[in-house]
């Protein structure tokens, strides 16, 4: 444990951008955990001063029904993070397991999982998400489900490709000779060795999940107003940019970008930490 922490500190110290990303992530986690309780205004309550520019009273201004944008942006962190984590867990869990099974065992595993992946991948992914949400109704659960489904193939494919390459490596053969069963090899040898590439994908997927929800909101298939969610705030606010009320879209957009940004940089940092080849 001590050496792991020391290693982490080394990586963070080495790479200022990664340190920054970790810091932002920690901040976001705090916002997600306690955000809705510490905000000055009720994120869902209409106010008497619609379309007020940022001021000392409303740090991020108000939107078209008078809601305080700062409160909504902070409160939205919880929902967006929940969507991101849930979709990624779904896609990563199902996709990685399916992929390494297909790559390592080959045969029927590969055929069936390959077909599933191909079927999903044959759809333009955003349109598939649109279709699923449109057909099943735009609830948060369906949005998470749709996002998880459309990201499943990426994990499965990359996992399969990596497992396919690694299964012939020397240490696998050594493990077999040592008497490890196939399943044990799968979990103790293959899985950790493909983690660097997979972890990179995780960070991207978390960002994509939030962006997916934003895209769905733009065409009216996202969460329902007046829910505070970054994507729908950006898409609603986009109509006001041309009229000069830039703050309605800009602040949620900025925070959304920072969050996705931070997820992406995080992935890089995590990879640096986990990649055994970088350890000294």
């Amino acid at each position, binding site marked *: 444990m001590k050496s792991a922490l020391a290693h982490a500190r080394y990586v963070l110290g080495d790479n200022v951008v990664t340190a920054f990303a970790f810091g932002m992530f920690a901040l976001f986690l705090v916002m997600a955990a306690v955000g809705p309780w510490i905000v000055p205004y009720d994120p869902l309550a209409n106010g008497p001063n619609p379309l007020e520019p940022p001021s000392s009273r409303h740090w991020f201004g108000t939107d078209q029904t008078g809601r305080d944008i700062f409160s909504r942006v902070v409160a939205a962190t919880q929902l967006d993070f929940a969507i991101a984590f849930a979709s990624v867990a779904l896609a990563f869990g199902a996709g990685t397991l399916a992929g390494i099974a297909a790559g390592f065992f080959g045969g029927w595993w590969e055929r069936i999982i390959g077909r599933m992946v191909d079927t999903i991948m*044959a759809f333009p992914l955003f349109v598939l998400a649109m279709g699923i949400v449109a057909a099943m109704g735009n609830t948060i659960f369906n949005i998470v489900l749709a996002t998880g489904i459309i990201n499943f193939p990426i994990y499965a494919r990359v996992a399969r490709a990596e497992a396919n390459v690694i299964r012939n490596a020397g240490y696998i053969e050594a493990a077999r000779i040592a008497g490890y069963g196939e399943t044990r090899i799968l979990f103790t040898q293959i899985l950790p060795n493909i983690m660097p590439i997979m972890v990179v994908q995780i960070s991207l997927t978390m960002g994509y999940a939030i962006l997916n929800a934003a895209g769905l909101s733009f065409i009216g298939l996202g969460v329902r107003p007046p829910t505070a969610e970054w994507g729908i705030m950006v898409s609603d606010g986009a109509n006001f940019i041309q009229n000069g009320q830039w703050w309605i879209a800009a602040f949620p957009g900025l925070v959304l970008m920072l969050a996705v940004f931070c997820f992406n940089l995080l992935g890089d940092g995590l990879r640096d930490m986990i990649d055994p080849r970088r350890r000294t």
Partner: protein
Amino acid sequence: MLSMILRRLASAIPSLIGVVIVTFVLTRALPGDPAAYYAGPAATKEAIEQIRVKLGLDKGLGEQFVDYVGALARGELGNSISTGQPVAHELLTRLPASIELTLLGLIFAIGVAVPLGVFAALRPNSWVDHVCRVIATAGVSLPIFFTGLLMIYVFYFLLGIAPPPLGRIEVFYSPPTHVTGFFLVDSLLDGDLGVFLAAVKQLVLPALTLGIFALAPIARMTRASMLSALSSDFVRTARASGLGSFKVVVGYALRNALLPVVTVLGMVFSFLLGANVLVEKVFAWPGIGSYAIEALIQSDYAPVQGFVLVMAFMYVGLNLAIDVLYGVIDPRISMAT
């Protein structure tokens, strides 16, 4: 190689069948009642029922599916409610617009992202690496429609250097004679430089918007796999053997690093064609993406079904091409399936 291609084609059939079924189910589950639409605004319940029977919508799902597959086999994709046109015809005429836009966006993205990824990998953790990372990541962190709207606001509305987002060509130009459907190609074939330039002008902003969004995955994968390749044994051997730096980086490392990048390219292209939908809406681009979205919102299911099926066939072809490319680049990948 040929037998592999045939085998892959054969194995693609189950996924195509899966696509047909999933599409049918999803579009039938869409809200809205086409019968009510056809019957008109003042129709009574009885009138709507009559139309429902006429359209065959009162039959069970199984029967409707059989009818649907039968029509597909004849090449009939149905008619769009909102435009009144046969779906097949509309998809065919609108497809070049989407492909032209997506290809241009992808070319821009590759041209910027691969070098970015290589530079970042060559000097890991240096400021070059950080800057590359920040550039690539910033592009993908904003929702694509927001990027598009922002670009329109800045370059068209404020600065006036971009043309109005009115589609593929400005109001006062006639489209070039239709040969391929790609305006850039057709206008050159026509010898009409004015139309060519007009088409280019309209393409710049939407292609940039798409490309910006694709920078990150390509750059990231290039960097990550280049790092893996650069720290691998064979590269160390090559360096130790005294081979020149360029040869090592491009000839050995990059070639081996390309494998995951190629995987990502395929996914990026497919994901761009999906993101296209949003860009087309923002820029009033008459492609299949905007066609499908308009139809989806109006619960006009024939165009959505047609769109998805066309996409599916294209992707099967694309994935096959990628797998072949895989085999060319990395013989280690097992061809046993």
